[in-house]
């Protein structure tokens, strides 16, 4: 089943999509932003927006097969008629991904959630919702992660009074980013110039 899902996304050479970004982190206040995301194989990626925008590194360039690249071992955790839960262990020792757990909609052959443990980015969770996008691209992607608590020296802020920030664990707080995708244009060709940052 994983190979079937992988094959479906392998037909994609490039795509562009409009994305609405909502960031929810205790210490960071930023208005919702709109951007256009461009992707071209093998790994060209660009986000364009008016003003400033930020996207989570994990989950943004979301071709759901990112978690089943190369060789891997699968462990089936549970398997009913609707959802299969599979653990993926990549064979590549250089891979950033250590272990990921995939929740798969069996009937529609879609990944609906991922819980990933990585070497560099720690652990994060991605929840995906779908409508009728071509190639089964997700419409809404929720990325949840732990992030180091933000603190600046007093000399930068002039603030001696610290406001409280909710902590997940020592020095870390929870972050969540919701990406709502619309207007997918897939395999229509994207000029390489778009990926050249000024």
């Amino acid at each position, binding site marked *: 089943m994983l190979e079937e899902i992988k094959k479906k996304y392998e037909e994609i050479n490039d795509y562009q999509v409009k994305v609405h970004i909502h960031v929810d982190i205790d210490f960071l*206040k*930023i208005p919702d932003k709109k951007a256009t995301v461009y992707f071209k194989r093998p790994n060209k990626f660009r986000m364009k927006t008016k*003003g400033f925008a930020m*996207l*989570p590194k994990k989950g943004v360039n979301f071709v759901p097969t990112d978690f089943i690249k190369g060789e891997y071992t699968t462990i089936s955790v549970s398997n009913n008629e609707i959802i299969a839960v599979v653990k993926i262990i990549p064979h590549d020792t250089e891979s950033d991904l250590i272990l990921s757990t995939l929740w798969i909609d069996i009937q529609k052959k879609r990944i609906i959630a991922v819980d990933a443990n990585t070497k560099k*980015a720690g652990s994060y969770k991605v929840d995906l919702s779908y409508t009728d996008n071509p190639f089964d691209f997700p419409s809404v992607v929720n990325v949840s992660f732990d992030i180091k608590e*933000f603190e600046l020296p007093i000399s*930068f802020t002039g*603030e001696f009074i610290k406001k409280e920030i909710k902590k997940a664990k020592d020095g870390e707080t929870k972050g969540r980013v919701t990406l709502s995708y619309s207007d997918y244009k897939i395999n229509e060709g994207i000029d390489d110039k778009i990926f050249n940052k000024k």
Partner: protein
Amino acid sequence: MLTLIKIELEKTFCHRRSYIGFLAIFVIIVIVQLAMYVEGNSLLSFFIQNLKDVFLFEGNLLNGYFITFILLNSMWVLMPFLVSLIAGDMIAGEANNGTLRMILIRPVSRRNLIIAKLVAVIVYVFLIVLFLMASSLLLGQLLFGAGDLIVYHGSLNIFEESDVMWRFIMAFIYGFLGMMVVASLAFLLSAFTENSLGPIIITMALVIGFTIISNLNLELFNYIRPWVFTTYISSWSLFFDYVVDWQRAIESAIISVLHIFVFCGIAILYFNKKDILT
């Protein structure tokens, strides 16, 4: 009355000393902007260090607004000194030079004279705060351009470009009110003495002492904090909260205006009955 105000303004702006503040502000702004032009990206990276591991960024945060905010944060330390330098000298300076008695020999009322001097202080404070705002914004735009603003104020706040200018305008108005409180205090002390150095030093000592009380998070100071004027001087920064606390902003404005009225009122009343010996 208008003639008196005109004369007081001429006297204020004929002194070279009155331009020290403008020159100091301009020099600091130019130095900081040039330094930011060279090393601004490192400072900005420091602001967003934790986010870099997790996020991809698009857009320029090192812009004129960011530099202006950094400058304002630093300059409010210098500004009380610059305004008290002029306001503290306004009456005591003339008493010290022996010109106060000579002026009052002429047919001008004491009340009108002190009000004219107060107007000159208000104009000076307005111009110097406007100069700080305008020059840092203009030079910032020229060197770095516009864009979204990132500030650290309780949390890391990012404002869209269209949401920034009104915040700076409100910061200017509140900055003016805050500096007027300091100027009024220096003006009041100036009415009490015959030596202009005294009011300036006492004003600065009070500003520094009260600023420590306003900002140190000690339980004992929690009771004193609402009663010291420095708590309200930094209200300009309220407009860089992500959601502005309007109630607190209005309270701060009212309390600042009350301070100005009380300090200036006492100065006028005292000066009307003062025994002028020099």
